């Protein structure tokens, strides 16, 4: 591991000021960052420890939503009874992620910013445009079973690995960000992430030194919430496909649907086109098949991951059936 200097920030202002130092990086739970530092993939010269910043509260917002501090640990968020009763899909998504030990460390902000688990990103002997811009993508013609079928580019087909963010995407979460100087801005979670295009090393719209301070959940939407994860092991494995769904039924018809997919794209993948298709439909297999086909219309496999296109459609169908029955 490359040597680095270490500093513990005592407040947000100090943290964002320290992040201006060349080669500086924030560390919170550290479960992903340290893993990458051990392998020489992340090489910060200076670590700013933000794990003790006073950002670990979950508070009610005035409109009936929740403001989740960026330092709220995944285990605490999953254990919160307000989350378990009002946002059960988020609690399920959190509990589907990682192990108990890691959830006790991993934070809300860190989870959003975790890096891909593409094995070629992790192998410093292989080309990877995300790790070493311009070096190529070894996954395109490599073993790409876990890779993206939507939203990828010729430069990168890595997926985003978070479960939590998939549920938050379906819940229209807002990310609160503080910049050096103390200015706060808010962006929709969907806008936090950038498409890989020709610059897959740039993953978010965060500017240098900016710090995520909270995630804001709007009031819980009406309807049944489901988070379903399909993976190679029953526990402690990343998603091949996951579906987060809020389905609101009225008089036998779908009044509103919100859906997000995990494991298929470089970011948690919201599907507004099928939400429109489903609105007003009765919960029939034909309607679900049509919606699932539409969701994956632009999907493109790369060989080993071709199965994900069908698996995503079937998982969507299963979730929609469960939500409407």
């Amino acid at each position, binding site marked *: 591991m490359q040597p680095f200097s*270490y500093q513990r920030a005592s407040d947000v202002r100090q943290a964002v000021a320290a992040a201006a130092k060349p080669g500086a990086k924030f560390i919170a739970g550290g479960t992903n960052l340290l893993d990458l530092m051990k392998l020489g993939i992340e090489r910060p010269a200076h670590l700013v420890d933000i794990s003790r910043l006073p950002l670990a509260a979950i508070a009610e917002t005035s409109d009936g939503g929740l403001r989740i501090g960026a330092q709220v640990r995944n285990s605490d968020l999953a254990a919160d009874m307000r989350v378990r009763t009002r946002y059960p899909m988020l609690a399920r998504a959190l509990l589907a992620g990682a192990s108990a*030990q890691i959830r006790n460390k991993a934070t809300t902000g860190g989870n959003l910013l975790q890096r891909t688990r593409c094995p070629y990103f992790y192998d410093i002997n292989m080309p990877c445009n995300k790790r070493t811009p311009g070096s190529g993508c070894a996954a395109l013609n490599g073993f790409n079973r876990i890779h993206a079928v939507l939203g990828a580019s010729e430069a990168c087909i890595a997926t985003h690995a978070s479960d939590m963010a998939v549920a938050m995407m379906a819940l229209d979460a807002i990310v609160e960000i503080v910049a050096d100087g103390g200015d706060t801005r808010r962006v929709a979670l969907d806008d936090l992430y950038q498409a890989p295009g020709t610059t897959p090393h740039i993953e978010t719209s965060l500017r240098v030194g900016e710090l995520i301070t909270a995630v804001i959940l709007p009031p819980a939407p009406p309807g049944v919430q489901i988070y379903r994860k399909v993976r190679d092991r029953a526990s402690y494995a990343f998603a091949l496909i996951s579906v987060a769904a809020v389905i609101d039924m009225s008089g036998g018809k779908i009044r509103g649907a919100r859906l997000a997919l995990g494991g298929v794209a470089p970011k948690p993948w919201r599907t507004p086109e099928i939400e429109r298709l489903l609105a007003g439909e009765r919960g029939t297999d034909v309607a679900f098949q049509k919606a699932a086909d539409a969701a994956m219309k632009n999907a493109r496999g790369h060989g080993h991951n071709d199965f994900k296109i069908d698996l995503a459609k079937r998982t969507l169908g299963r979730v929609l059936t469960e939500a409407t029955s």
Partner: protein
Amino acid sequence: MTDLPDETGLTRRELLELSVASAALAGTRGWSAEAAPARSAAGDAIETAVTLRINATSYHLTLDPRTSLLDALRHQLALTGSKKGCDHGQCGACTVLVNGRRINACLTLAVMHDGDEITTIEGLANGEALHPLQAAFIKHDGFQCGYCTPGQICSAAGLLSEVKAGWASYATDDLTKSPALSGAEIRERMSGNICRCAAYPNIVAAIIDASGEA
């Protein structure tokens, strides 16, 4: 790393003992795998002072900030009960309790735990009286080679606290209720601890047995 003598004529264990004695007495830097003191890109020495509270004892150390909590325990303090398996948070052999919560000691920096209450497998027993989980692992033969066992037991201790606090798991049907401990709950909640000998059925039995008294 082996226990063969190195060029100083000392075995690794003797080196550890020497360095721990000096670290504990004088608060100096202990044995480290790094040959030279760490320097930042600008050439500054970057060692950082930290007080680790481990098993109710305070240790004042000056560490290269790269030192993981696991390496500090094993190399600086000779608390070798916590094991290094994968060093990437995948196997759980390094599990310790920090402020009562189970974490992977390999995936955190020692300097980030200044003042935290850390409990390792060495601190679970009450004197000569084994912790109920330790006794249950022996009774149910919850191990074979034993390498993962300290991590399994510390993890199980964390699990029992989490269940007591009403935390749900992915195996819990009704998220709005406090879950009851079952085999399925234990298997899900212990998925961060791998046992290559596959002592899993006996580990589950030991945890169920200990859950009443732990």
